[in-house]
């Protein structure tokens, strides 16, 4: 089928579109000449959205209401008004998932999440989803009529500017949400970090349960600082409260593809591996030589992180 109209759920931070947004717009414009960017707020980022391929912007100001139900309801009103997108692309993150889930019920269409690729054969639209820690790739084809709803993991596509002009902005009103609109944000808290951002850093040093106890995480931060990289973490130590969620690498955290990824005291659960397997070079330090992390490591040290990390730190300081 031809994809005559694609919608992309776009997000911005401080007025600038997120990298995931630009990745999806780049892919969308290779599949269709009509690409609509859907964005919460006032559409202030329409210039950059147009540059990366959006031909139109629908701006949906949802105020303090959580965006999931508000944006989905506004999109439903556009669809009811007669515009039918063939495909709606979402980033695999909180807001993306919430909008997608609410809309899927409103239009009674299936969702396929966690994708890393999409193609249109002319006979059908097919997405690719990695499973079992990324060892197996499953291709799934949508059946029946669209809109098809698909969510994509960060860094699935390279973002490239198309040099397009700023997209025209249309404001879409949020319909009366009734009881479903009762959830409201009353305060926003941002956890400040110094150094490069985890998902943009060239070097990432991550720690896991093998560190033993929370104070040992200081070794990870010290090594990351010495290498001008970012510290990361496995889900296990985030759940245990050692570090904030924003440090988490993995399926439910950040996807990173740095030049060098150092995994210290991380066994390599599927949940973690899908977030870091795309790294160019992987160094692993773990006591257990059977740990799955060694299956993806370019250099693996079977040893105690409490001995090896301080040695690396001392060697770097001595240079």
């Amino acid at each position, binding site marked *: 089928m031809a994809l005559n109209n694609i919608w992309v759920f776009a997000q911005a931070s401080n007025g600038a579109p997120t990298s995931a947004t630009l990745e999806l717009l780049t892919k969308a414009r290779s599949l269709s000449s009509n690409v609509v960017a859907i964005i919460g707020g006032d559409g202030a980022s329409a210039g950059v959205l147009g540059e990366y391929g959006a031909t139109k912007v629908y701006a949906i100001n949802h105020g303090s209401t959580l965006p999931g139900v508000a944006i989905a309801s506004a999109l439903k009103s556009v669809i009811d008004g007669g515009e039918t997108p063939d495909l709606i692309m979402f980033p695999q993150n909180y807001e993306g998932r919430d909008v997608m889930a609410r809309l899927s019920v409103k239009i009674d269409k299936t969702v396929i999440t966690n994708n890393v690729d999409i193609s249109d054969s002319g006979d059908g639209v097919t997405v690719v989803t990695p499973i079992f820690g990324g060892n197996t790739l499953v291709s799934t084809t949508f059946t029946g009529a669209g809109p098809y709803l698909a969510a994509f993991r960060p860094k699935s596509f390279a973002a490239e500017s198309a040099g397009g002009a700023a997209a025209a902005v249309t404001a879409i009103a949020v319909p009366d949400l009734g009881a479903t609109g009762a959830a409201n944000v009353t305060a926003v808290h941002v*956890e400040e970090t110094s150094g490069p951002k985890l998902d943009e850093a060239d070097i990432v040093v991550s720690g896991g349960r093998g560190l033993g106890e929370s104070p040992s995480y200081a070794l990870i931060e010290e090594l990351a600082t010495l290498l001008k990289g970012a510290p990361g973490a496995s889900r296990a130590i985030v759940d245990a409260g050692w570090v904030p969620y924003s440090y988490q690498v993995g399926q439910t955290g950040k996807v990173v593809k740095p030049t*060098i990824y150092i995994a210290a005291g991380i066994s390599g659960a599927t949940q973690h591996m899908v977030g870091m397997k795309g790294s160019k*070079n992987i160094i692993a330090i773990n006591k257990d030589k059977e740990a799955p992390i060694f299956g993806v490591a*370019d250099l693996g040290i079977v040893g105690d992180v409490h001995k090896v990390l301080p040695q690396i730190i001392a060697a770097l300081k001595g240079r």
Partner: protein
Amino acid sequence: MGAMNVIVCVKQIPDPAAPGALDGATNTLKRDGKLILDESDGYGVEMALQLVDAAGGGEVSLVSMAPNGETSGLRTALAMGAAKGVLVSDPALQGSDALTTAKILAAAIQRLGGADLIIGATESSDGYTGTVPEQMAEILGLPSVTFAKKVSVEGGTLKVDRQTENGYDEVTCALPALISVTAGVVEPRYPSFKGIMAAKSKPVEEVTAADLGITPVGWAGAGQKISNVAQAEARQAGEIIEDDGESFGKIIGFLENLKVI
């Protein structure tokens, strides 16, 4: 609030410690062996028990869906302190997509008469689609707060710290409502011996999709078909060495080769 009733959606999954496998005929995840309570759902059960306790009355009920009548995971949650459950068990459920799953669970929740609060996990540990709670909220006409990392009920109003990409938001919401909770929201209790014994006689009603008035289910209702399964390109095996006290030098050399130090 004098009393509060909470329904927790729990999933019974193949033991994650065992390697996963696909059914050769359908390309869906094999779920024919013993199923256990998804670890992600232990947090929701614990959260529900604590909220009911804080309210001073009420009870925790469970809803679950499984193709083969399995109840061992439900018994774990009952042993923690939940009072009863509804299990939707039907061979026709094999291959159901997330939207159909949400319709089934929402119907099971309505069969229990609804609740003040519905709790789910942010995503399951085996399928991890991550949309079912929010889809249920839409079907039930409820407000929702996903990714809750701290939850309380004050004066009949739900207060949630909702995890965001770079911190958290404080969110308030009227009840009834639905939340999805992150791992770590509370520390799940271990079932006591007394709890395990009591769980054996707690009621679990088993119903089919047709009993809930829902068709089609399984592959017939999925709106998608698996067209190919392939192995991903494997990474080249690297050099693995036992630490002899000097192996940090290997790492330094590796970093030097890449010209990052």
